[in-house]
């Protein structure tokens, strides 16, 4: 397989759902990514669009505004991991030698929130009563019970991520929050309060990936290229007693790190799926960044702060930056690329050279990418 590099990144700020058509969001992000790469649209040879809440057939209606070039394009749906999967498709395309320059653009608006279990003919005892906040609250309560922790530690995850988002001009939530504000933000599902859950709004994120041949032929700036040294994707195994979210993340992250030849301790920056605060504690353990049961203590020690041992969700994460679904996984790659280039401004993690992006999606699926600054 060939090496694959991120050569351009672009974002449309995440925000509450508005009347702006998705086309405007996506075109904005792609134009920014092209400008960042120093590329013309005519150099892009294929396009993957990550989206879960928009109708079918959205790709060409968006990309035509850049000039119709007749390239292959497809919409990639994989629940919350739609954007990550679009990045992976672009990576596969280049790694496999099919193209040299490919765009992955995540774009979404909350137009429909379908219920896949219902469509699959599954009738359980709880139906819609067990919505996503309930699923993660069930995990949270067991985790707090097993480790003898106070629910306040979950609010500390939100304080960190809202604080990071306050320094991110593309974040949906720009206000720093105190512990009291998070704890008093209104009831949701115990132990979560409202500011411990991600907002689902709209936005767009785009990355342009290129092979070495593409970089050379087009004369792109190799010094700003960041290399994707691993791409891994898995799905849930037959149900076991063990928490499947954790098991799936552990297996996918291990596969990604092995592919990159790294250990968890090598990571400087991690963007992970924390739609709800508990997920950050569960996944830093599953990724091997904390010993089992030690995530809360590490968090309180500042290990996951910008400037800490490994910056976790420096973008603000799903809770602070927002979770518009399709863009989210692509936006993680934009953030890690900015961090590894040393271009993350106010939220720059010093010395960031290796990062990991992680998303899970209902179903359940998991996608992880490792990015490294390898250029001289």
């Amino acid at each position, binding site marked *: 397989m060939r090496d694959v590099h991120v050569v351009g990144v672009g974002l449309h700020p995440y925000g509450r759902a508005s009347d702006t058509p998705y086309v405007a969001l996506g075109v904005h992000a792609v134009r920014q990514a092209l400008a960042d790469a120093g590329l013309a649209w005519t150099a892009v040879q294929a396009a993957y669009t990550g989206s879960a809440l928009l109708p079918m057939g959205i790709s060409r209606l968006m990309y035509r505004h850049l000039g119709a070039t007749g390239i292959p394009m497809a919409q990639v749906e994989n629940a919350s991991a739609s954007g990550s999967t679009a990045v992976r498709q672009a990576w596969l395309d280049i790694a496999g030698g099919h193209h040299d320059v490919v765009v992955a653009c995540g774009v979404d608006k909350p137009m429909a929130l379908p219920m896949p279990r219902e469509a699959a003919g599954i009738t359980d005892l709880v139906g819609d009563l*067990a919505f996503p906040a309930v699923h993660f609250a069930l995990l949270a309560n067991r985790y707090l019970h097993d480790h003898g922790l106070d629910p306040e530690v979950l609010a500390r995850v939100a304080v960190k991520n809202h604080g990071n988002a306050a320094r991110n001009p593309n974040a949906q939530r720009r206000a720093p929050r105190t512990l009291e504000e998070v704890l008093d933000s209104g009831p949701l599902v115990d132990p979560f309060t409202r500011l411990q859950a991600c907002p689902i709004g709209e936005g767009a994120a785009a990355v342009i990936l290129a092979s070495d041949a593409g970089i050379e032929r087009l004369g792109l700036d190799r010094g700003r290229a960041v290399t994707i040294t691993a791409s891994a994707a898995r799905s849930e195994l037959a149900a076991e007693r063990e928490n499947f979210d954790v098991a799936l993340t552990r297996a996918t992250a291990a596969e990604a790190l092995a592919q990159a030849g790294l250990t968890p301790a090598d990571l400087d920056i991690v963007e992970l799926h924390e739609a709800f605060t508990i997920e950050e504690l569960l996944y830093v353990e599953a990724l091997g960044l904390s010993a089992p049961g030690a995530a809360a203590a590490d968090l309180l020690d500042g290990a996951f702060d910008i400037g800490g041992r490994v910056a976790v969700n420096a973008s603000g994460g799903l809770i602070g930056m927002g979770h518009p679904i399709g863009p989210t996984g692509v936006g993680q790659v934009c953030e890690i690329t900015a961090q590894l280039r040393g271009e993350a401004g106010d939220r720059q993690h010093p010395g960031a050279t290796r990062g990991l992006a992680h998303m899970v999606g209902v179903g359940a699926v998991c996608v992880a990418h490792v990015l490294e600054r390898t250029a001289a």
Partner: protein
Amino acid sequence: MDVTLDGDRCTACGAVFFPALRWGCERCGAAALEPAVLDAAGTLLTYATVRLADPPYTIGEIALDAGPVVRARLLPPDGAGLRFDARVHGVRTDEDVCFAQEADDRA
């Protein structure tokens, strides 16, 4: 009368499911599953109370003695007195099956 749940069992590997999988076994891929009536009794793995709702309700995750882990509403709806790892059993209320802690397992 004891409450039961209508699940199914794989005729090849014996795995038991609720809700019924019907179209093929998740564990081994065999197509043939047979109906299995499961006792609504097991252990409470975890629970969460939904405060957004008025009145609040509580969802639990229960490891059935028959094997599957199921989610169900718990009694009382506000979750008062529930304990992790307690024995719970099914209770039929109106149309639904809820679960409640067994008497000698109440706090």
